[in-house]
């Protein structure tokens, strides 16, 4: 891997964000909107029921965790789409850039976006909802890392599909992560899912993370088992996703679609 190439690509994607007010707003707008909606909902639920006081924590925590996964995937796929929209993707692919360098750069951009959003959401939740996410402890860190890795994996798949099928399927960049949301048991425990769906749910790293998160937020011990499962599943899924990406990339070159990407 050539560090100069990766840095060049990261530079290019950060220039785009820095030089575009709409992109900066877009990056912060949806997470902030989510935060407000879930904050008001949890406040309402608390006021009408004698539910556990941790309800706010669960819902806001889940919302922030979900955003970590989603933004990690978005950082990767939207960086690729930015070059397609700008008709620049061919210039990148005919430069001496290895595919793994390109993917590493988009993954780094995803990570950068996630870090910015975590900071903004944590501060906002503290100021607006009196919800101190950091007080929950550093146990959440490794869970975050797993969501970021899963986001990269989904990013690989969505990027591969857009590369193979063109801009006509670019809405997949936003749709595909949400396919995983019902089974990931983001806002409810996996036990509420139908029996047939539970094994499927538990095969996702995100489900293990959200189960672990609830355990931590409820004051339980560090969720070692969930964390190990999440890491193992992430390693397996990432391997499958890398093979899928390589297959799509090769197929795209064979069928000539790569040469047409972003030029029509």
């Amino acid at each position, binding site marked *: 891997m050539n560090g100069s190439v990766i840095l*060049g*690509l990261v530079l290019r994607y950060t*220039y785009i964000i820095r*030089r575009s007010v709409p992109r900066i707003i877009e990056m912060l707008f949806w997470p902030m909107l989510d935060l407000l909606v879930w904050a008001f909902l949890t406040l309402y639920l608390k006021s009408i029921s004698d539910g556990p006081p941790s309800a706010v924590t669960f819902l806001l925590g889940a919302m922030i965790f979900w955003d970590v996964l989603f933004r990690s995937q978005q950082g990767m796929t939207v960086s690729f789409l930015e070059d397609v929209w*700008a008709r*620049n993707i061919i*210039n990148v692919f005919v430069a*001496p850039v290895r595919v793994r360098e390109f993917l590493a750069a988009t993954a780094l951009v995803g990570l950068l976006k996630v870090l910015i959003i975590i900071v903004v959401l944590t501060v906002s939740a503290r100021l607006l909802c009196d919800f101190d996410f950091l007080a929950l402890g550093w146990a959440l860190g490794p869970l975050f890392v797993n969501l970021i890795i899963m986001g990269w994996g989904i990013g690989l798949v969505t990027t591969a599909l857009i590369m193979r099928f063109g801009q006509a399927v670019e809405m997949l960049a936003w749709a595909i992560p949400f396919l995983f949301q019902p089974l990931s048991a983001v806002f409810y425990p996996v036990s509420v899912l139908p029996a047939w769906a539970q094994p499927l749910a538990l095969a996702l790293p995100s489900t293990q993370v959200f189960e672990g998160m609830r355990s931590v937020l409820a004051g339980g011990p560090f969720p070692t088992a969930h964390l190990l499962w999440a890491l193992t599943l992430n390693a397996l899924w990432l391997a499958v996703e890398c093979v899928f990406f390589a297959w799509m990339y090769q197929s795209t070159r064979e069928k000539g679609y790569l*040469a047409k990407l972003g*030029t029509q």
Partner: protein
Amino acid sequence: MSELIVEIQNLRKTFGALVAIDDLTFSVARGEIVGLLGANGAGKTTALSILLGLVTPSAGSVRVFGQDLERHRVAVLRRMNFSSAYTALPSNLRVEENLLVFARLYSVQKPRRKIDELLELLEIAHLKKRVVGRLSSGESARVSLCKSLLNDPELLLLDEPTASLDPDIADKVRKWLRQVQRERGIGMIYTSHNMRDVEEVCDRVLFMRRGKIFAEGTPRSIVEKFQEQSLESLFIKVARGGDIEDL
């Protein structure tokens, strides 16, 4: 004979039942400008895409700088570059920012000095801080050429570099290309639908039809061989389905 920097042997590319390139063989010598001509669908864009590593060939071999392109893609791409009227540089970045990004992708040493030197050469130093999206098409074309010279390429692939340029700028671009070819000994493969471009810039022309080369030589020798008034009239005749055996 000069060293060959591109050697294509029996190249074939099919997309399903469509034969885009059919047994194509040609070479390019160091410092030579070769024009790839043909009507739409003749196979020149596919040939260019294969040379850029964007499309994999179905059969045949492609060697650039003596190396197999498929096996040494990154090493080969480091020594060549590309400019096309159909791609663009990100419009919301400044000229300098765009060039800095590509300088990193091509691992250019002392990138800022290189960028200044090229902006001077192409007479666009005053555009350095301008946003690319606000440039005229002529200015954008020059910035794109600037990008294509960043790594001091030994081979430059140009896909209709003067398309959408007014005659004055197109003429300047042709002169710059000739100048950099003379001064730096860059080999070029040049596709264009503008026959004036080809006659003025290319040392040798490969005329393609249905994925094959049917005529090869200097622009003048091709015109004479087929007893046409100009390359343009030959182009039109071929594009309209004229049988080359009858020409």
